[in-house]
């Protein structure tokens, strides 16, 4: 899949923001979430119809994401105002619960947009939502720790929460990469055009191998630009290393050092988000849509 900058930025940034929001509400990053979601509107080819995306809540994960995100803004905005003014009481608790629930809902819907796509094996796995939720909470928890270092009396519990999410997110990411390496689930060019080994008589074509002779177009098409992105394995490995080092290694190491000063804590959070941008880029670049089989790729 072609890694579109606007989507990568939107999922990572709103992920971090949503994770942070959920955590703040449980115990804001309005700007992060807003920037993320505005960026996803930029991705539309015909944004004047964006308002219609609220209309298919019953069937479409993208529609659900839009509805929950639209509800999150006023609710979390009000909640932040109450937090800043240190007012509230019961209504503040109610708003906290609502904000947290909505933030989780948006995160899960975003993940399910990808996880529900059957033609993309690397996305259609249960590790996709697990990754989105945990990575969002991990980067959000780091930001929260940085804020706690600056304002809270005790930052220790925040450090602990960040550490737990960091380890869980790391485990989820490694499990995801392990899962997509399992090529027994891969579809082949032969299956895509109905060639079955040993088939005889009526029914699918018989023969063991198939290859593309001619793709039928002289220059690129919508399909090649949308699905044709290729990433050499060697580069993928290098970039996974970068994502691991920036997204997990350095920030986790800093948690172990644990000096409760907001400047290095913020640097750790920014470093983590950089790593997650690389991770999200890979999530797209490593995904192979079945259309590529028709364009001659031997397997997905």
């Amino acid at each position, binding site marked *: 899949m072609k890694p579109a900058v606007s989507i990568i930025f939107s999922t990572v940034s709103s992920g971090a923001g949503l994770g942070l929001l959920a955590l703040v509400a449980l115990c804001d990053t309005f700007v992060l979430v807003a920037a993320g979601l505005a960026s996803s509107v930029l991705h539309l080819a*015909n*944004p004047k*119809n964006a308002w219609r995306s609220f209309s298919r809540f019953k069937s479409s994960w993208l529609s659900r994401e839009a509805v929950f995100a639209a509800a999150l803004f006023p609710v979390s905005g009000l909640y932040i105002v109450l937090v800043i003014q240190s007012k509230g009481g019961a209504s503040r608790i109610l708003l906290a619960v609502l904000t947290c629930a909505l933030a989780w809902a948006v995160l899960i819907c975003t993940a399910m*947009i990808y996880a529900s796509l059957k033609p993309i094996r690397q996305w259609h796995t249960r590790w996709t939502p697990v990754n989105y939720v945990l990575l969002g909470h991990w980067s959000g928890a780091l930001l929260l720790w940085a804020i706690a270092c600056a304002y809270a009396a005790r930052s220790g519990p925040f450090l602990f929460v960040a550490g737990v999410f960091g380890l869980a997110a790391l485990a989820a990411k490694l499990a995801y990469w392990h899962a997509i390496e399992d090529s027994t689930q891969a579809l082949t060019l032969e299956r895509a055009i109905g060639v079955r080994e040993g088939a005889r008589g009526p029914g*699918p074509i018989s023969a063991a191998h198939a290859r593309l002779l*001619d793709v*039928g177009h002289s*220059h690129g*098409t919508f399909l090649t630009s949308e699905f044709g992105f290729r990433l050499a394995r060697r580069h993928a490995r290098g970039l996974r290393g970068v994502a691991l080092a920036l997204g997990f290694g350095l920030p986790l190491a800093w948690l172990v050092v644990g000096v409760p000063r907001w400047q290095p804590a913020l640097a750790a959070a920014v470093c983590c988000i950089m790593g997650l941008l690389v991770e999200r880029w890979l999530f797209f670049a490593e995904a192979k*849509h079945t259309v590529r089989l028709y364009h001659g790729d031997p397997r997905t």
Partner: protein
Amino acid sequence: MKLGLVIDLDTCVGCHACATACKEWNASSKVNGALSDYEPFGAEPSGVWFNRVRHYEVGDYPENKTINFPVCCMHCADADCVTVCPTGASYKRDDGIVLVDQDKCMGCNLCAWACPYGARELDQVPGTMKKCTLCVDRIYDEMLAPEDRQPACVLACPTHARMFGDFDDPQSEVSRVTAERGGFGLLPELGYAPVSRYLPPRQPQPVIDADDARALLERGLASLASPVIRR
């Protein structure tokens, strides 16, 4: 009703007549609006097509064969392209045809991601999604002669490799030929229940090498000669 196409991989010669006839008809159709071309006379021409023909080689020499493979929307019974659409622009009609309402689409591309066959293409000019309409503006048009109420691709095919009809009717040509020839749908494992069917190429005759040919010839000559000699 379950309208769809049958594509005969045995007779398709890969001439792209269906694809060009489709482009010609739909470029001036009101259902989707024009099908934009990008740099049509430039060095790198490209554009929106509903039907694309690709060419494969299956099997290994000498048992190999070229297969010409046209692909357009299968009007799936279980079409995820419709389910994922957040605006309701993508919809499935009672007769089985899957369409995009151009006035509602916001161009998010999600339906194109959800289609396993690459049957949907975004038109960059209006920023909306376009796809095969099964020539919904031909097949019900009573101004046309009955034999012309078929998709443009079916009418254009010089080898009759394309047929159109209702798969819900067991007596229709498409149902009968699918049953006779073992027509199959693409990637059934993904669960979209594609309606259109492909007819596999007929089995090739075994290839005879030079030694086999000589033995056959000798046997043939002997059987011809023997009654003469016996007499």
